[in-house]
């Protein structure tokens, strides 16, 4: 499509010139190494706080970092209220994030300035404290000195000048930091308002509630066409043809275009939501619990549809859900979130083979399976963060324990988890051997 070619034109000068790692393209921050690698989306230290009044802050997402590769399906799992949806909505710029940055195809599309503001504040506080200390020292030293002979007077002036110099140094440092951070904040604000909207339309989202996410006063055609119009496609005949094609692709009839959303069932509405996202010819699709509001029999239809779209368009997906069996079925990599923090991230097979974090284990043990014999014997693991972790001595960090397997832990826990991996490997090998001995293959 011509959208694609336009964007390639935009990137051409960068690719040909050969520039340094971080630079500006049309004034927007751009990371070349991200753009050239196979990473499509990169989230760095994302924090999203909401004001709750009375100076209270709700820390919905607290320091989340991850990369999504091209053509991958990335799953985000966790209980309700853990910040999954907030993460998705922050990526697609429905919120101005508090801190951190989001890079899409190397361009910074969303960033927060809280850290920079804090930097200015703390440098000021720290500097002023230091100055206070120095003044006290100066005062003490000067009080001991006699001020009678001319030699003494010279000495006196010297020490005074020495301290003055120190203080001015600190003040200079503060103003430097302030200048630098203010520049950065300005840059963030500039980036926020100057991100190329063509680039942003390559990112689309499917929302959780198929009923509330469609405007009841717009026809299906108007709903789907809205994005195209915003992007400047004003040829109605062409748009109509495109819409008909998309409707048929998502399994609806083309003549549904003139109807209103209330004439459709839940599954059909979700298909309209998918069509609205797909018509923009996106490369990256965020699916926010697309099936949790649907009926059992319709769920499988939507899952199959998403799978087909993924293959036909070569989409990269981010799949947000709380149902682990669906995520396991659908995704290549899974990240588990708990109270605004990412606790574990691995490929889906790896996560199910070695669930390390106790919360992941609890989550896996709670999945109901359609199998009465094993279901009635099920032992659920209860996760109690106060009991499981001892973070008084050492704070946990998000670190890689196996290649591609990340977990939130401190050093004592890491050694514990490594032993757990070994145990699990032995157990799985034993099971496999038993199966092979029986001559059964599953």
């Amino acid at each position: 499509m011509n959208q694609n070619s336009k964007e390639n034109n935009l990137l051409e000068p960068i690719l040909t010139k050969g520039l340094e790692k971080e630079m500006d393209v049309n004034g927007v921050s751009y990371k070349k190494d991200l753009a050239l690698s196979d990473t499509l989306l990169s989230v760095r230290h994302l924090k999203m706080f909401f004001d709750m009044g009375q100076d209270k802050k709700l820390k919905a997402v607290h320091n989340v970092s991850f990369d999504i590769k091209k053509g991958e399906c990335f799953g985000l799992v966790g209980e309700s209220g853990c910040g999954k949806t907030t993460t998705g909505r922050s990526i697609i710029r429905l919120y101005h994030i508090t801190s951190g940055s989001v890079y899409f195809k190397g361009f910074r599309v969303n960033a927060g300035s809280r850290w920079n503001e804090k930097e200015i504040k703390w440098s000021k506080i720290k500097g002023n404290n230091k100055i206070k200390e120095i003044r006290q020292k100066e005062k003490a030293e000067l009080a001991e000195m006699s001020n009678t002979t001319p030699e003494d007077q010279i000495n006196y002036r010297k020490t005074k000048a020495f301290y003055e110099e120190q203080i001015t140094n600190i003040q200079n440092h503060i103003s430097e930091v302030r200048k630098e951070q203010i520049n950065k904040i300005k840059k963030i604000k500039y980036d926020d308002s100057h991100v190329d909207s063509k680039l942003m339309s390559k990112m689309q989202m499917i929302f959780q509630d198929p009923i509330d996410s469609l405007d009841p006063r717009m026809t299906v055609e108007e709903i789907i066409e809205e994005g195209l119009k915003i992007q400047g496609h004003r040829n109605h005949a062409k748009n109509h043809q495109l819409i008909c094609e998309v409707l048929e692709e998502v399994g609806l009839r083309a003549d549904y275009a003139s109807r209103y959303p209330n004439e459709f069932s839940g599954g059909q509405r979700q298909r309209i939501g998918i069509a609205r996202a797909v018509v923009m010819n996106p490369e990256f699709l965020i699916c926010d619990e697309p099936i949790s509001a649907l009926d059992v029999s319709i769920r499988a239809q939507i899952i199959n549809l998403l799978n087909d779209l993924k293959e036909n368009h070569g989409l990269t997906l981010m799949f947000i859900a709380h149902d682990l069996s669906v995520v396991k079925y659908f995704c290549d990599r899974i990240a588990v979130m708990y109270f605004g923090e990412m606790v574990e991230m691995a490929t889906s097979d790896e996560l199910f083979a070695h669930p390390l974090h106790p919360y992941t284990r609890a989550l896996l043990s709670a999945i109901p399976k359609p199998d009465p014999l094993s279901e009635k014997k099920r032992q659920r693991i209860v996760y109690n963060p106060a009991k499981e972790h001892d973070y008084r001595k050492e704070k946990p960090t998000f670190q890689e324990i196996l290649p591609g397997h990340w977990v939130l832990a401190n050093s004592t826990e890491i050694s514990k988890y490594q032993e757990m991996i070994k145990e699990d490997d032995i157990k799985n090998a034993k099971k496999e051997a038993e199966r092979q001995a029986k001559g059964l293959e599953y």
Partner: protein
Amino acid sequence: MTDYSNKEVILSVRDLKISFKTDEGLVNAVRGVSFDLYKGETLCIVGESGSGKSVTSKTIMGILPASAVIEDGQVMFEGEDLTKIDESEFHRIRGHKIGMIFQDPLSSLNPIMKVGKQITEAMLVNHNRLNRMYDNLISKEEASFKNNKVRRDSRIAQAESKIEESDEEHAEKLNALTRKEKDLAFEIDETKDPKAKADLKSQYMALVKENKEASALIKADMKKTHHELSLLAKKEKKAAKAEYRKDKPILKKELAISKKNANKELAKYKALKKAEYQKKLADLNKEEKDLNKQYSDSLALLKRNISTAASKTLAKKAYDDKCQEFENKKKEFVDKKEQAGIDYQKCFTITKKEAKEAALNVMKEVGIPQPEIRFKQYPFEFSGGMRQRIVIAIALTANPEVLICDEPTTALDVTIQAQILELINKLKRERNMSIIFITHDLGVVANMADRVAVMYAGKIVEVGTANEIFYDPRHPYTWALLSSIPDIDSKEKLEAIPGTPPYLLNPPKGDAFAARNKYALAVDFKEEPPFFKITDTHYAATWLLDGRAPKTEKPRIVSQRIKASLERAGIKNESELEGK
């Protein structure tokens, strides 16, 4: 395997048919549902939304909206038909004997009422213990007295409906004849060729003549059958009325006797309690008297001491202390008497304090930490799982025999869902409740169910024990449900059920699932399949089980999963499975 033949049936639904009045006409939401609920078991009802699961449960609770019409069927509970009894009588059953947990914890609690008040509300509404005792004592006789009348009315209605049916049949036949005539007349108008027109005209004349005779015959037949049927109906009416009249005095007498007995029993109870109370009061009075005597003696002694003793202040102090002690003791007795009065009152009514204590106990039972603080909070201060626990607590306060859970975990997370399911299972074991569990999540069904009923388009299509449904499903809809959920252990393409469930304004002819069923036979589009028996507990309504049907296998994805899960449980053959 439990033997279901000699288990006690606690609730039995027979051929229930419910419709909803809408602008477009009657929507047949439930079209003939029958099942039994045994004591201490969990029956899971599975199906898509709109299959009539919730409507069935609401009928059992007697909370159908005003637009619903119960067309036919019975819900038998303790010898009473719950579809026939009126609202005031339902108060005795709803909540006390049949409790319900609702689907949405957000909207099923009152947002501007404190949680504690909502839990105690039901207890305080029915605070009069004597009334409840009286109702329970006479309930059996009253039910049979009322059933007598109901039986008479339904017999008469049945006989009258037969007349109507035959009339309608005949009218239909007459209509068909005239329709044919009209069609032919229309055709004559259409044709322009004079020769053909004349031909048709002659045909038309012949038809009119023929029709005249036929319609006369039909009319005669109609008159005759109408007459015959009305005679029969009259006879039936007479018989029913006679039986009703015959039984009425006996039943009335029985009812009067039981009422008298109940009154006697209540009077006895009252007298007993009163005697107990009076005895207690007398005891207390006696003790007080003794105490008074004792103290007055010692006080008099001490008073005399004041004037004689060496240290006047010390003696005075001793006297004052003793006085104080006496006062305290007196107060204690007043309290005790008051307590006795409250205890006496408690035998007849439930006080607010008592209701609160009971509510706190229930809240503790369902796992709400710090119930004393939570008691005074509003629903918005609770998380989803906690709110669902409150809803469960409200259902449990009256200690019901049957608990209906209408998708209690659909709005919740997996972890919270697992907690709630464990809680319901625990309560069921402790209280020996029978549970009707409605859901569309087959994983939850596997966890909870003893028996499973699969519903589709207002009908039960397959019913059996959990093992039978999951390891030996027979109905194509059950196959489709089982193959449309993603499995943790495999990544094969899911077999989605095509299309959507039928709209029940005009239910499809034949098997309702036929249009979405890839195993559908020609007969499925014409005639509704009856229930075929597979084992004593396992029935399925599909023509595939008929002897004449071609042999069909389960879909590969289902049979593979069954094989895998049986292997996981260490069972080699399906025949080893319990209940096979």
